[in-house]
């Protein structure tokens, strides 16, 4: 009892210590004394009502045992037939075994029927298992514990992805359960080379994270780099893949994300086959892939399921939409403020008639419109769907009709803002970047006209040119120029011609098809 008191004292002292990593039980061995173990666990879990300690005895000697699990994280229908019944009844029907098990491994091999079980010799492993939905069994007189997979918590069904709808192609989307997501990937790539490496990140949330890659395709240094960056995350919480993305992305850009994310298993599988690495985070329906290039923002998985001509045309449309979304409004301001001579005369006259009576200069008008649009967009997204539609409707009427008829905003400006807004949605991967860039270019155009806009574009190119994603230039394969990789960048050539993987990703195993073009 003195020993127990010492340990409990040590625990309570450590609990008060500052810092997020003071978990004393992690390295503590699970001893033979069941009472001590139970007491320790009760101390560790506090008074959590959902942690169940199911005490039972088995064998003629009435050996004491306890099963620990968290209600709601395990499947109740698996607890009794797969864990309790084999121990209490099946193993002891008839005579008492001559040799009683002395280790957890012996208990596992003699009595357990559960599909997946493992041993834990320290409390850290036990806690990790229980917290992710496994059941732990401790037996009096035997060192260690048995961790049995009994996970079963409510989860969303596999549905159409919300942000990547397609007209043609698979309609499955990732869900919040990591194991379901990795299974979705396994279903697409039935190769023994598909490797899944698990790790846990977040010292409070203990979020399971899986690194997925094709062992014979992905660059080893890339895989090591991803692992190293993930291991370097020292934080208390990882609640979504967005956290991981921000921690491990290459630094350098306030506008562009140098990691891609997708809700679609077929899109991620395609990227894995090109030599990229995927990161699946438990609790997030968005799977990250790295490295990611700028050109990827204008590609969808559907591009590979339709004729190459249409796929290429759609990619160009998306790229043009991105350019329009950042440049249309600044260009309009530059033209109407500084370079009116560029506008055809008839158009200039009708624009002058529409804009003539408005009180603000074009740049101020544009700023007002952009801010109002962003407010409406945000309100429309966050509100419940019926209310969101109402807000959009009210906004459209007020801006489209009343502001123009009241002479506050010119009608051409409304058209320019509308074109900008619609274009931004055509390239959703860069929607956030386009919002900020549009604002910056607008200020440049408003102050310096076309010269400011041109120099701004040059600086954007310089910025993009300096970015890297896990060591690979972000503008690949255009800058630096890789002719072979451009077969599937802004254009998509016929699949028969796509014989190689991107050189910057899978130089080790570049060939992907043995067909002759």
């Amino acid at each position, binding site marked *: 009892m003195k020993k127990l008191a010492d340990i409990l004292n040590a625990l309570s002292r450590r609990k008060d210590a500052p810092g997020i990593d003071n978990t004393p039980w992690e390295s503590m061995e699970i001893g033979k004394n069941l009472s001590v173990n139970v007491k320790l666990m009760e101390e560790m879990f506090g008074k959590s009502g959902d942690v169940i300690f199911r005490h039972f005895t088995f064998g003629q000697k009435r050996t004491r045992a306890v099963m620990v699990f968290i209600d709601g994280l395990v499947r109740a229908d698996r607890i009794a037939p797969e864990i309790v019944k084999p121990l209490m009844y099946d193993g002891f029907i008839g005579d008492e075994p001559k040799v009683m098990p002395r280790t957890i491994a012996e208990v596992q091999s003699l009595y357990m029927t559960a599909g997946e079980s493992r041993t834990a010799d320290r409390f850290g492993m036990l806690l990790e298992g229980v917290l992710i939905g496994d059941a732990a069994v401790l037996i009096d007189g035997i060192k260690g514990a048995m961790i049995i997979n009994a996970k079963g918590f409510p989860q969303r069904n596999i549905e159409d992805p919300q942000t990547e709808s397609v007209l043609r192609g698979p309609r499955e989307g990732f869900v919040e359960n990591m194991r379901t997501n990795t299974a979705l990937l396994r279903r697409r790539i039935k190769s023994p080379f598909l490797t899944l490496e698990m790790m846990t990140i977040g010292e409070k949330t203990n979020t399971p994270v899986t690194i997925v890659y094709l062992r014979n395709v992905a660059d080893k240094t890339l895989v090591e780099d991803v692992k190293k960056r993930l291991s370097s995350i020292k934080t208390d919480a990882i609640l979504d893949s967005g956290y991981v993305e921000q921690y491990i992305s290459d630094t350098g850009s306030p506008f562009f994300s140098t990691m891609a994310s997708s809700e679609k298993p077929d899109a991620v599988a395609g990227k894995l086959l090109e030599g990229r690495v995927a990161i699946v985070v438990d609790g997030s329906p968005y799977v990250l892939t790295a490295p990611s290039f700028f050109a990827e923002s204008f590609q969808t998985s559907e591009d590979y399921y339709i004729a190459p001509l249409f796929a290429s045309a759609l990619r160009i449309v998306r790229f043009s939409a991105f350019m329009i979304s950042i440049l249309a409004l600044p260009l309009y301001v530059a033209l109407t403020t*500084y*370079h009116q*001579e*560029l506008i*055809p005369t008839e158009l200039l006259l009708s624009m002058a008639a529409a804009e003539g009576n408005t009180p603000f200069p074009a740049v101020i008008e544009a700023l007002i419109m952009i801010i109002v649009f962003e407010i409406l967009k945000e309100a429309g997204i966050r509100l419940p769907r019926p209310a969101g539609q109402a807000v959009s409707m009210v906004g459209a009427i007020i801006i489209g009709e009343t502001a123009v008829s009241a002479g506050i905003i010119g009608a051409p400006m409304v058209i320019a803002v509308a074109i900008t807004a619609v274009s931004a949605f055509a390239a959703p991967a860069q929607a956030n970047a386009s919002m900020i860039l549009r604002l910056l270019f607008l200020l440049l155009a408003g102050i*310096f*006209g*076309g*010269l*400011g*806009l*041109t*120099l701004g*574009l*040059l*600086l954007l*190119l*310089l910025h993009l*040119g*300096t970015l890297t994603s896990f060591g690979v*230039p972000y503008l690949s394969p*255009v*800058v*630096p*120029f890789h002719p072979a990789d451009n077969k599937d960048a802004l254009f998509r050539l016929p699949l028969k011609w796509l014989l190689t993987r991107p050189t910057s990703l899978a130089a080790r195993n570049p060939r992907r098809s043995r067909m002759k073009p």
Partner: protein
Amino acid sequence: MFTTRQFMFGIATFIGGSSLFTVFVTQITHQDSYIAALLAILFSLLVISVYILLLRRFPGFGLLEIHKLVYGKTAGRLLNALYTLFCIGFSAVSLRNIGDFFTGFIMPETPMLVTLILVAATCSLFAKKGIVIILRNAFLFFVFMASALLLNSLLLLPNMELKNFLPVFTLGYDAYVQGAFVLTAAPLCEVIVFLILLPYAERDADVKKGLLWGLLLGGAYLLCTFLRDIATLGIALSYLTEPTYEAIRLINLMNVFSRLEIVFAFTLIIMRVFKLSVLFCAAIRAAEDTVGRTFRRRGLFLLFLSVAVILAAMYLFRSGLTLPDWFRNTGAYVFSVFEIVFPLLTLFLSLLRRIKKEKV
């Protein structure tokens, strides 16, 4: 580190960035300017062969390092200091040229100083990122530049006439030689600044090949510019201060696609920023070599450099109208000392003193 291909496109874009300099020649050789351009390409090939011979003797070395080997450390550094001034001088000419163009044609109400500051600041930011990043983008710049030339040439087809090339060879041979010499001095042999930046080339990069093909590509671009302008404007181009701009001004497609000269102006800005950024990078390297240390605060040096270039651009030339005249009669000769005389002298001395990289 940059590759052979990046080096080649970098040189071609660098030359293309000087397409406004055509006026330096059209006022001498009129509708025969394309002949001067052809001669200039031939002259430049001769000069480039001197560069290539130098690089063969000192493989893996840049111009600044070669100077120190051939002339000794002190004299070499002195020469490198002169090359720093050369880069600053050329930057000033290029900046003034674009400033005059913008103030004269595009934004007459905006003071030239604003244009100069904006362009110089952008170039400084490029130069701060370094030559490797700049040349990595060279292909994109080249595609942009070539597409613009192709597009406006196609749109100008209805305005082109073969008779605009006539009469041929009516000028004295000295006019052709002078025109070719001016074009050789700027922009064709300006590519000597790339020799300063050679230490940033990849170890296996074939810089000699890149230099040669880059010059030919850039030369071809200039030649096409001359041909388009002459075919469109004829003899009139010799009276205009900006023939290319005036030629593109004639584009009118169904009364919708007109006034495209402003698009050309912005294309020109993009190419000129590329050129000035390379010149800034070369100036930094030459200055670093002169003082014998690497600038830790490169941004601060670039600030000084930009101010120096802007001041030189503003006050060294009385007016934009006199710039072509000054360049034809003075500038081309001064710059050719750095582009032709010094490299030739260095080669000659290295041959005479039998200095080679192996011996070093």
